[in-house]
């Protein structure tokens, strides 16, 4: 969704062309991210000739402030889509930054890892909006990601296993 997409594109802005192909996964209800991503990739293609990317949508895992129990159900539903998708893409690296959409994708990656099918590195970057508290996705993925990045020192103190690089978006 909006803010998350803007942030993740900024994170991608300084990455070398070794990070290719890029597979973007976002919620089916998201109307604006596709345009932002295409615009970013178009600019990128002006500098890097072999730029490759794909776009995929999965059902949105959770609405803002949706109840815990119904969120589990909707996330499981999203998992039905994210699992075959992640299996097909077999990513080496998963970069996510907080929308509910990242949870089923990361769960899928962990399942593939457990089954010995593919081991992806999971890097989570908490949004710059999160100064004192983690998002729900953050609270979950703090334990399941390989690298968990926060952008404010307060969070680094509260979550010692996190990585603090300062503001990166």
């Amino acid at each position: 969704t909006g803010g998350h997409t803007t942030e993740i594109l900024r994170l991608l802005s300084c990455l070398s062309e070794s990070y290719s192909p890029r597979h973007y996964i976002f919620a089916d209800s998201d109307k604006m991210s596709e345009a932002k991503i295409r615009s970013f990739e178009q600019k990128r293609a002006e500098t890097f000739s072999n730029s490759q990317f794909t776009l995929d949508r999965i059902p949105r895992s959770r609405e803002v402030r949706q109840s815990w129990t119904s969120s589990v159900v909707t996330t499981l539903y999203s998992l039905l889509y994210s699992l075959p998708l992640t299996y097909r893409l077999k990513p080496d690296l998963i970069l996510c930054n907080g929308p509910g959409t990242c949870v089923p994708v990361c769960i899928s990656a962990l399942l593939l890892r457990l089954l010995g099918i593919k081991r992806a590195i999971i890097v989570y970057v908490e949004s710059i909006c999160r100064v004192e508290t983690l998002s729900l996705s953050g609270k979950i993925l703090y334990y399941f990601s390989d690298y968990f990045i926060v952008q404010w020192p307060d969070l680094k103190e509260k979550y010692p296993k996190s990585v603090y690089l300062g503001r990166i978006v």
Partner: protein
Amino acid sequence: FRFKDSLAEDLRRADLVISHAGAGSCLETLEEGKPLIVVTNEKLMNNHQLELAKQLHRDGHVLYCNCSTLVETLQSMDLSTLKPYPPGQPEKFAVFLDKVVGFQ
């Protein structure tokens, strides 16, 4: 005005921006180098949205008030006390990620 696709042009022409505490609005304004007054409505907003606005205020980048104190803030404000907002550094993320993945 209702919903424009982008406020970027209006933002560039503005001398002062008064906004709600949404992260996108705040950061876009600060990155454009415009003085910003953030107006919060603690009753409507959920706590997490205020975190960024409060931190930006603590760091001296924005002025901060609520609906009832807005007029007073406008009358007594000193915009020269606002500090410029340094942009984020995605280069640091790139360096970190290269190490993680093994590209050196």
